[in-house]
């Protein structure tokens, strides 16, 4: 290790005629056979040799940069062992430091010491010189990890602030930090007053009107889902990305891909995660895997170190601070991401091997405003118990039919929690994820649509762990529903502006899907109680609530609406041939009751703890520990 004192610009330079590979062989770090293998790979992928060597595990990162230092004729510095002077670095935008991989780490009276992981360009030298005119700029070589470490240390508060409030600073109206704006308060109070006034002075008409609107909302929701899922089914056999397209991809032209894996209290799952990521069919040298670990979660950090991940995996320790949510961690990850495209996976995810390639093709084939493609999510533990079966049916229906239907109709797509692939640059423009929204993914999909971007779907699946425990399921579902309500509140702050930006069609789609979901689950129990009262007592006391039109709509919803929802759910078994699950579609009413319980929990939590992220516990499934081939 070098210290500052030992660092000297007069490091002996290796022969400039030597190339990196030869230098590594000469230094005894690499065997000629290993070099040959790496060069063959390079000819296919056009990736930098250094990245190929580290991704193959043939060379340690530090070894590589030490040799590079010799090649470039510069000294090497280990930033982890060197006292860092942050003053000069703080004069730079940290994003610039990340992008260009340099870090000014010490300043003397006549010189500025700059660590770099790239050969310094004249432009950089010029910029630095302009900053400290009378100083000599001395470059030191270090690893990318060292640079990132230094940046994280130096800009800890700034990174945290950006991750937590970046979206809010950019546009407070797009952030759920403010639960209700003043206008929304006024509107809600106004509606509430009208309701109270109506109930007091005209009880019957008010109740009739309420009942009518509830039934109408149900009808709208049923018809919307019916139409969209049939649209999705229409294109079931059309593969947006074909196997042939994947096979004909030129690996040389593949871009760098960043994979964000937020993991919190998931020490158990870490080894599986690495195993699953290893299966991805994408040149390892072009992968940047950022494992996002929370500072206070030492158990997972220890497990991650113990798992000895490959060189392309980088640990990003998320500074402790509120809100401690997945989107905040993802924003930190986004800050360091260098890939042209970026995807999020949960720790227990099993993406199909060719998913990244399909996403690349989708972006290439898609329009320029395509910001994100969502892969289908499904469950590997679908046969574990009643909950996992129902969950699998729900997800199969949602991702295999509903989302493709929304895609075909060019309606906003609420993203799923994982396996959403982004154009990194556009994601940054959009402000990343909202850390105060507990369904940041759904919110981002809608925000993208509201800003004129498109979200699409790809025919690839990521297999996850379905929640197999009831309380855990209710916690997860209540978070989702709370997030949906947050998303509605955020995007309906200025309905006219939304209408103008997104258009009527998108706005209606958004309201039906994101607004309709919590509304139906919240109001359904009222209708169920009415119905049970009628069935059990035969009372006619409620007849007044059902004037002809309401009665017909209500009957349609009760008989055909529920039946249609069950029938549409049967679609779910076809694409994946889960025929044995078909019989469970008839148990949907029980599943809907659970949704309603979760919806009430979500509403209560929105009032009491709006930003509280109810962590879903993963790693409960027995299936998790079986090999993917056997599940």
């Amino acid at each position, binding site marked *: 290790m070098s210290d500052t004192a030992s660092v000297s610009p007069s490091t002996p330079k290796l022969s400039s005629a030597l190339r990196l590979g030869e230098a590594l062989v000469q230094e005894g770090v690499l065997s000629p056979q290993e070099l040959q293998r790496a060069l063959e790979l390079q000819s296919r992928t056009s990736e930098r040799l250094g990245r190929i060597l580290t991704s193959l595990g043939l060379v340690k990162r530090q070894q590589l940069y030490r040799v590079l230092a010799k090649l470039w004729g510069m000294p090497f510095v280990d930033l982890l062992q060197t006292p860092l002077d942050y003053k000069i670095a703080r004069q730079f935008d940290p994003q610039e430091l990340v992008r260009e991989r340099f870090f000014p780490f010490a300043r003397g009276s006549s010189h500025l010491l700059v660590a770099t992981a790239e050969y310094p360009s004249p432009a950089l030298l010029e910029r630095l010189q302009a900053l400290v005119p009378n100083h000599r700029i001395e470059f030191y070589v270090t690893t990318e990890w060292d640079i990132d470490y230094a940046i994280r240390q130096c800009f800890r508060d700034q990174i945290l602030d950006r991750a937590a409030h970046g979206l809010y600073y950019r546009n407070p109206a797009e952030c759920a930090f403010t639960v209700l704006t003043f206008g929304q308060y006024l509107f809600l109070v106004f509606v509430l007053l009208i309701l109270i006034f109506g109930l007091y002075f005209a009880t019957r008409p008010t109740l009739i009107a309420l009942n009518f609107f509830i039934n109408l909302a149900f009808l709208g929701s049923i018809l919307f889902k019916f139409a969209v899922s049939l649209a999705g089914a229409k294109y079931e056999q059309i593969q947006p990305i074909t196997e042939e397209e994947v096979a004909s991809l030129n690996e040389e032209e593949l871009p760098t891909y960043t994979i964000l894996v937020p993991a919190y209290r998931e020490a158990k799952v870490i080894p599986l995660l690495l195993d699953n990521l290893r299966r991805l069919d994408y040149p390892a040298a072009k992968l940047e895997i950022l494992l996002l670990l929370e500072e206070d979660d030492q158990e997972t950090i220890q497990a991650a170190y113990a798992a000895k991940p490959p060189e392309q995996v980088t640990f990003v320790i998320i500074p402790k601070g509120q809100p401690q949510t997945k989107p905040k961690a993802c924003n930190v990850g986004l800050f360091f991401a260098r890939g042209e495209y970026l995807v999020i996976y949960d720790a227990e995810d099993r993406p199909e091997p060719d998913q990244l390639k399909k996403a690349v093709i989708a972006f290439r084939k898609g329009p320029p405003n395509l910001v994100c493609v969502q892969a289908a999510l499904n469950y590997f533990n679908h046969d574990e118990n009643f909950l996992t079966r129902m969950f699998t049916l729900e997800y199969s229906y949602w991702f295999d039919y509903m989302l493709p239907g929304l895609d075909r109709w060019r309606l906003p797509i609420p993203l799923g929690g994982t396996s959403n692939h982004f154009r990194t640059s556009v994601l940054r423009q959009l402000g990343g994820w909202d850390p105060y929204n507990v369904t940041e993914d759904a919110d981002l999909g809608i925000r993208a649509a509201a800003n004129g971007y498109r979200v699409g779907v790809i025919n690839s699946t990521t297999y996850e762990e379905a929640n197999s425990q009831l309380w855990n399921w209710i916690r997860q579902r209540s978070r989702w529903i709370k997030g949906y309500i947050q998303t509605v509140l955020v995007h309906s702050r200025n309905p006219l502006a939304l209408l103008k930006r997104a258009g009527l069609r998108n706005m209606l789609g958004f309201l039906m899907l994101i607004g309709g979901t919590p509304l139906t689950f919240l109001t359904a129990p009222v209708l169920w109680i009415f119905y049970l009262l009628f069935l059990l007592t035969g009372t006619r006391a409620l007849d007044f609530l059902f004037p*002809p039109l309401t009665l017909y709509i209500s009957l349609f919803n009760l*008989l055909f609406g529920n039946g249609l929802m069950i*029938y549409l759910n049967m679609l779910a078994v076809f694409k994946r041939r889960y*025929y044995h699950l078909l019989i469970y579609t008839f148990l949907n009413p029980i599943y809907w009751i659970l949704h309603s319980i979760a919806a009430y929990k979500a509403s209560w939590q929105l009032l009491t703890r709006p930003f509280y992220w109810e962590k879903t516990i993963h790693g409960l499934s027995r299936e998790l520990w079986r090999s993917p081939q056997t599940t």
Partner: protein
Amino acid sequence: MASVESSGVLLRPPKISDQAALRRERDVSLWQHLFFSLLLSLPFIGFSLIASQAGFLSNQHAHLVAKVLQAIEYRRLELIGFTYPPLPFLLTALWARPLMPSLIASLAAGATAWLLLRHLLRTSLSPLTVVLVLCALAFTPATLYIATQSLTEMATLLLFLLAWLAFLRFTRYGETLSGFVSGLILGFAFFFNAYALFFSVAYALGSPLFYAWRRLSPRERKWQADLTLVIVIGFPSLLAFLSWAYLNWVFTGDAWLFLTDPTAPLYTFFSPTETTSLDLFSTLAYSLQEVTRAPLYLAGAVLVAVHMPKRLVAYFVSFGVIAVVRMLGWNYTEAMAIATYSVVAGAGIPVRTSRAWDKPLLLVAILHFLLNLNSPYQSNELRVWEQVILKQQVQTQDALETEIAQWLCKQPPQSILADDRAVYRLVARCGDSRPFLLPAEGEFLMALHAPAQFVNYVLVQRQGAPALDQVSQRYATAPPPGFRVGANWDSWTLYRRIDAEAQLSGSGTLR
């Protein structure tokens, strides 16, 4: 094929040939479908207009119009007992006039003809043969009658055909959407005709036989996959059936009223008076004899047997359902049976049929046409309609009915006590139910007990009144207290309240 290594799940593999076939089937836009359907419905509309001009009104359409008029007056569907089947009723509500159901039936017939034409044009038969086969199927008295005077049955046939085409796409190409569409159409058809349930069950049970299974993965069980197909095709019809039973139970207290009420099921279902036979062998013999009057149906069976013998079972589903229905003692009218065979024949001719079959088919088509033209039909109404079309003469009965209706129409609102189970034809011809005090009206029962306090007239049918016609049952033989016979028309008697002004001077005939 997207084989998923990480999960062991095998996604449905879309075969390129399947996709191409599906694309070919969808090479016509919705607007083109509508245009050609409309074009081909013009002859049927013509026949509807001729019958209407001659004053002909089928019982079914009269019933529909009468119910619609009441619904419009009371603005509550459930007050008139959730008329079954509801969809012809709702369609008629678009314009509650006797011609309306005929127009809609004609449009349905046009759409059916268009779909059959498209299908036949995909064979290698010459265009001339195709057109003649289609004409032979469409222009027989039975099919023309169904196409213009029986909205319920014509719409049912169209829906069966649509369901069949979707069913084929589902079973041949494994297109999930088509399976669901087929199931939904059959479920929808139940609201036109209760027999849809039978067809739905037959298709559902038959789907595993015809489904072109791709390779099943080891963990998949065939019976589960088969059960899935059965449920997907059969569930909507079952849902429709049970839903309607539930509605009947809620609003009438009798879940099966829509099937058992003699007037509710529109003359076919559970209508013993029209039932041909209850005996197993005679039913079969009758049905077989009926089939011989549809030579194209038999020719279709030969072609199916030659080209795709496995599908012969599906081809004969229609025959099986008709026979079973009749064996159960229910009615499947002769005209509807011939029309059903005609549609099945047209849709069943395999696409692979070569031009070598041109001449034989041409001959069979001519035979089909001639046989049907000269067949004596059991249905009196059909025979009358034939006379109206052939001779274009106004029938005395129709003229009288029209005249009575016109007179009744001029009476003040709710001044004539009557039961629409008997007077529906008069209500329909009148075009307004307001002059009548009918069972759907809250005061009806009180008026039935003491007509003098509520109405000026009581209208009864002296002979042949339905058992549920409460007014005729009570007053067919003697006038209610305070009334005397005002007029006798054919089988009708109109009692006039003694103190009411005599207004029966409108027409000599009516006097």
